């Protein structure tokens, strides 16, 4: 099988990897680059656990052809907490917004994408922003509360 080189920016650092024909971005990030923060959930675009930001937009890494990110700017949860916890991570802890934790990286990236363009979202806008991410533990309320905490500039309840 042909291997193609692909170069991109991952969490601010230039990266190069080889991709196989038909390989999705999630698989390349996890097996090729070693970034295990985006999670492998459904591989069909239903769960949102693999959400990464591509040029600032939340997309589903399992449905992105790996070779198509050539030259693009990628962000994953691995890049969020470099200089201490990101305010969203702090708020998720405070609100107990992660239980099993499998959806959390996707939730964090969907929330970050929202706050990057809309630092003061309404509750409805938060719900809309995480509507592509399934959580089977929390019932969503702690997650919504955590995101609103960050939006309102207070992390502790």
């Amino acid at each position, binding site marked *: *099988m*042909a291997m193609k080189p692909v170069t991109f920016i991952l969490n601010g650092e230039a990266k190069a990897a080889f991709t196989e*024909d*038909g390989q*999705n971005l999630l698989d390349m990030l996890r097996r090729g680059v070693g970034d295990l923060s985006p999670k492998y959930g459904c*591989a*069909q*675009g239903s769960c*949102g656990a693999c*959400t990464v930001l591509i040029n600032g*937009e*939340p*997309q*589903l890494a*399992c*449905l*992105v*052809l790996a*070779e*198509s990110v050539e030259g693009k700017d990628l962000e994953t949860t691995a890049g969020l907490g470099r200089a201490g916890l990101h305010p969203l991570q702090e708020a998720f802890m405070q609100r107990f917004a992660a239980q099993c934790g499998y959806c959390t990286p996707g939730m964090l990236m*969907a929330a970050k*994408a*929202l706050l990057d363009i809309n630092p003061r979202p309404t509750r409805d806008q938060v*719900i*809309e*922003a*995480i*509507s*592509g*991410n399934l959580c089977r533990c929390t019932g969503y309320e702690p997650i919504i509360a955590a995101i609103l905490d960050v939006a309102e500039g207070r992390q502790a309840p």
Partner: protein
Amino acid sequence: MAVTIEKHATVGDAQRALGGDAVYLGGGTVLMREINAGFVQGRIIRSTDPVLKQIRQSGDGFEIGAGVTMSALANHAELAFLHPVVRAIGGPQIRNMATIGGNLFAEPPYGDLAAALLALGARLVMAGGQARPIEEFFRDRKRAGLITAIQLPRPRDNKSFAFHKVSRVKPKGVSVMSFSALLPRDAGRLRGVRIACIGLGPGPLRAFSAERALEGQVLDAASITRAAQLVTDGLEPPTDALASSWYRREVAGVHLTRLLERMI
């Protein structure tokens, strides 16, 4: 056997490469899941031609590149009539990826935008440059060839086009059914009625019985009731994981009524 990805700089090259069993990859939300599951093998064609991402206003309408995403449509101020449709599709991630051209090929329960384009009387521009009515495409979409753009007339006013989607989960639920209606008026009477739906047949289709009930009428409680009674005439709503055929028949008129009442 595995997949082979071919990237082409122009839509012309991509069209020439499509032949045999090759499949075109657009935004990925339909095809990548099939690739991930190993259901699609062989040649996959994609193109980075910037023409696919363009939205142009032309005369009394628009020409929208087939690779324009739902998000790009939702952010385009002049396309406000399409916003209720595209905002009801998927979650934010899907809208950042899924394309207007790809939606034409999406199997049920997807295809809300495709049905809206059918109601609007869109024309599809093929890679060769010729434009054909969207109805022709739906007769045999498996062998359609490469679509490069969608031409859309602008609805005359905000009462002449509307959309209504029925889903069990909000937001981000798939359609049990959705209706799109184009109701141009001439001296108060409806002329050139087009009502399209998904969820009441094997794909996007027009509800001809409801259209006939409204054509030439004034849009009022009586004409709406008549259209709602007839809406599933000639259609065979499917039974699937979302709803039974019986249920779809029972509620189709209720939902068409809700849509049409907003357009009075």
